[in-house]
């Protein structure tokens, strides 16, 4: 799914973007547990989370995450936005809940690796 379609599906506001909006994002990891992101994500994924502190961006950098979607209108902290700029990780905010955000993206065809893409 293109980043453009993810933004449209989540009705998201772009806080910071570092990639071509037509970039394909192949997988998603929705979690508030940073070790789960490190364990279960694949590179060039979307992270959906309710955590907004800079550590989330740092963990995303280590996990090679392309973009982060913050749910329920939660705004990333200023330091998190600055770190995302430095590391080239795109940030969007959606008013949707974790459940609804994931459900809408699933219906549109985005899947979570590895369990759905065997």
């Amino acid at each position, binding site marked *: 799914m293109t980043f453009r379609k993810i933004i449209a599906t989540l009705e998201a506001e772009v806080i910071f973007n570092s990639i071509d909006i037509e970039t394909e994002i192949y997988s998603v990891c929705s979690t508030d*547990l940073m*070790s789960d992101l490190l*364990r279960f994500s694949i590179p060039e994924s979307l992270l959906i989370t309710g*955590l907004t502190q800079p550590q989330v961006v740092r963990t995303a950098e*280590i996990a090679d995450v392309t973009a982060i979607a913050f749910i329920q209108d939660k705004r990333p902290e200023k330091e998190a936005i600055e770190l995302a700029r430095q590391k080239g990780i795109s940030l969007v905010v959606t008013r949707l809940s974790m459940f609804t955000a994931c459900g809408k993206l699933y219906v549109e065809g985005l899947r979570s690796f590895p369990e759905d893409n065997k």
Partner: protein
Amino acid sequence: MIIKNSIEGSFHLTGGDFTNAGIASSELKSILTELGLDDNVIRRAAIATFEAEMNVIIHAIAGTIYYSIMPEHIKIIVNDMGPGIEDIELAMQEGYSTAPDWVREMGWGAGMGLPNMKKNSDEFKIDSVVGEGTTVEIIINIKQGLR
């Protein structure tokens, strides 16, 4: 990419310093990227080091990351002045954690740190003395000639 000589360095870590947590692993990742190593090798090394770094930040007073990048493998040793681990076998189980609630609220302390380190290592050793500290040794083999 062929590494002819070993490249070594270290990072000092301060326990509880969440502001700077992860910077050491991020810098190591940049070094490995500049060397042109395979993406998967870089990612595994970064994740294993990051988990070890976070354990020091969460549990210890201070610690050090030593790395040496050799032609055949990357070796990362992380030691800390911390509480030590009473039962290593138990600590290696997924989901087992002694992290306090405030750490969990930040998304850490889910009991996946040590298992994640082991999963991303080709060789993994852990040694701990209660009341003194913990040392982990992570070795990741470099597949030569992939890039």
